[in-house]
């Protein structure tokens, strides 16, 4: 059941990224480029995605997930250096290539060799993250 739900969810996500044009790096960079020919599409995608999710979060109240267990607890509103530094590094890479994790996977079948190289580099980055995270934690604890 979990597998079927995950496949359905991934399919909706992939279809959404595809039809919205978010796997086109020109549209993403066009939205980020305030000095260029600004492309508003990304804002519509974000808005369109947040609406069903607001409803979904409301529906979690007093309920359990379909497969059982419990919903993710509200996050600790902790604004630490990992959140700020990580988001900044991510954003820089996102702007540089116009790809973020979801679209890089969604476009694997048609993104060519460049898309494959991006995903491999992203995986490499994900491999070096855990020790870096631990280091940031220990530095934070010492300070």
């Amino acid at each position, binding site marked *: 059941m979990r597998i079927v739900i995950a496949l*359905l969810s991934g399919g909706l996500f992939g279809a959404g990224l595809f039809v919205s044009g978010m796997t086109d790096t020109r549209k993403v960079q066009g939205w980020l480029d305030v000095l260029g020919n600004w492309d508003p599409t990304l804002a519509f995608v974000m808005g369109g995605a947040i609406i069903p999710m607001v409803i979904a979060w409301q529906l979690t109240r007093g309920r359990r997930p379909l497969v059982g267990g419990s919903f993710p607890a*509200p996050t600790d509103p902790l604004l630490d250096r990992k959140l700020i530094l990580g988001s900044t590094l*991510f954003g820089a890479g996102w702007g540089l*290539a116009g790809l*973020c994790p979801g679209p890089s996977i969604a476009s694997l079948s048609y993104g060519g060799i460049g898309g494959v190289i991006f995903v491999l580099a992203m995986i490499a980055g994900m491999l070096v993250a855990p020790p870096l995270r631990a280091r940031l934690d220990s530095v934070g604890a010492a300070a």
Partner: protein
Amino acid sequence: MEQDWIWGLVGGGLIGLGGAVYLLGNGRIMGASGIIGGLVDASGKDTAKERLAFLAGVILLPVLLMPLYDTPISTHVTDNWLVIIAAGLLVGVGTRIANGCTSGHGVCGISRFSLRGIVSTVFYILAGGIAVVLFRHILGVI
């Protein structure tokens, strides 16, 4: 071009629906970097099958939808491998340090009014905007 925002809204709705299915069905947050990262560093090996099923769906649907389009769809990604590798590394390490990306912190975080999600989104959009302006308009690399 003027239809782009409508397709943006439709596609966004599908993305949000995907997140809703994952949340209400499996009780999990649909964050692409978390789903991939948990496989990469083995922190999510207990849920490896559903992570792989999710990613299979993400790859498969564009393949199925592609024939409906008259013109071939391209990512128009740069052919400068150095830029691609640098960007990939930054995205990989950054999302795993921040524990989320556009889907997790952005779509799923903002919709639950999470302060972390909102702050993360502000920072990655600012950094992305600065990167595009710097590398496109000032350095002319992209």
